[in-house]
């Protein structure tokens, strides 16, 4: 039984490893004063990309994009990983739903 568990744990590790490797691509968006920096972020097309979204405001924000199919709440003073793609080359808009007037940005896949 224990051997089985070890094998299962190892298999799970191997299966999850590629995802971890993908996350190594370093893309970061920072929310400050309800604005995204950079407002335009270039990412490679046709592959999955992990973006770290840092919310340095005290209030929560919801990273949202229909084009990117992401909807994720990021509590104040914390960060979260948003996985997107594979994207065809093009421009993909996103917003911070809780402060849509100012929190806008675009992902450029190329």
């Amino acid at each position: 039984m224990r051997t089985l568990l070890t094998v299962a744990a190892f298999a799970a590790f191997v299966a999850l490893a590629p995802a971890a490797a993908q996350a190594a691509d370093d893309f970061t968006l920072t929310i400050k004063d309800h604005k995204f920096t950079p407002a335009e972020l270039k990412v490679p097309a046709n592959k999955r990309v992990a973006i770290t979204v840092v919310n340095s405001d005290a209030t929560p924000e919801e990273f949202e994009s229909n084009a990117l199919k992401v909807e994720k709440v990021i509590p104040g003073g914390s960060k979260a990983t948003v996985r997107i793609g594979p994207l065809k080359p093009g421009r993909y808009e996103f917003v911070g739903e809780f402060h849509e007037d100012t929190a806008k940005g675009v992902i450029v896949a190329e």
Partner: protein
Amino acid sequence: MLGALIIVFREVLEAGLIIGIVMAATRGVVGRGRWITFGVLGGVAGAGVVALFASVISDAFEGVGQELFNAAILGVAVVMLMWHNAWMARHGREIAAEMRQIGTEVSEGAKPLTALAVVVGLAVLREGSEVVLFLYGIFAQGTSGASLLTGGVLGILAGAAFTGLTYAGLLAIPQRYIFSVTSWLIALLAAGMAAQSAQFLYNAGVINRMGDTVWDTSWALSEKSLFGQLMHTLIGYVSQPTALQLVAYIGTLLAMYLLMRVARYRPEARAVRV
């Protein structure tokens, strides 16, 4: 204030539509008001707890806790909706007959109101937690808090009014069609939820295939528009669906159809026909 109103209205709208459909689907069942109230109150309490532990949930499972949480909630709701429809397929005719005989009230206890109460609770919890987080943010900002809060409350009221409107609209359907109409609505609702759930699993990296966008109709109808959002909640409209979302959507409709066929199957009824 208007911004707060719109955001809160949008969140409340989704839960409100679901409540409206559930209320129409349980029309004439004794005790349904109590069950739906339980669902709503449970959902509101749950929303508070989820909002309170938002950071914990986000950080869980190496940062994909929120995606897994949403996928699980939607998954459970899909199962509950399937259960309800299967049950209705089996007993709907008896209930309809009973309604015609003794007026509109149907005896309590036989119907799995728990399933629909859970669906209502989960819908309120999911959308409500975002409202709580948003309103908390307003409080924390301090300055124009009062007017934004007014907007929030008005948004909730507007969403509640929409629930009433949905319900009233469905009630206009003649009694003998209401079960088949609500069964269809529930099937489409479940399919849309399954597609959303699958997308959350994809975003979490649990599913890593079929992530390519199949078509784009955002030029014709965006989910950001009010009508687009209504369609998104009601029939699962997505302007840029992935292959995975389509498979989940169609798969759920098929599963629902088969389940209802199986539930409807009665050996004695068949013997009569043969």
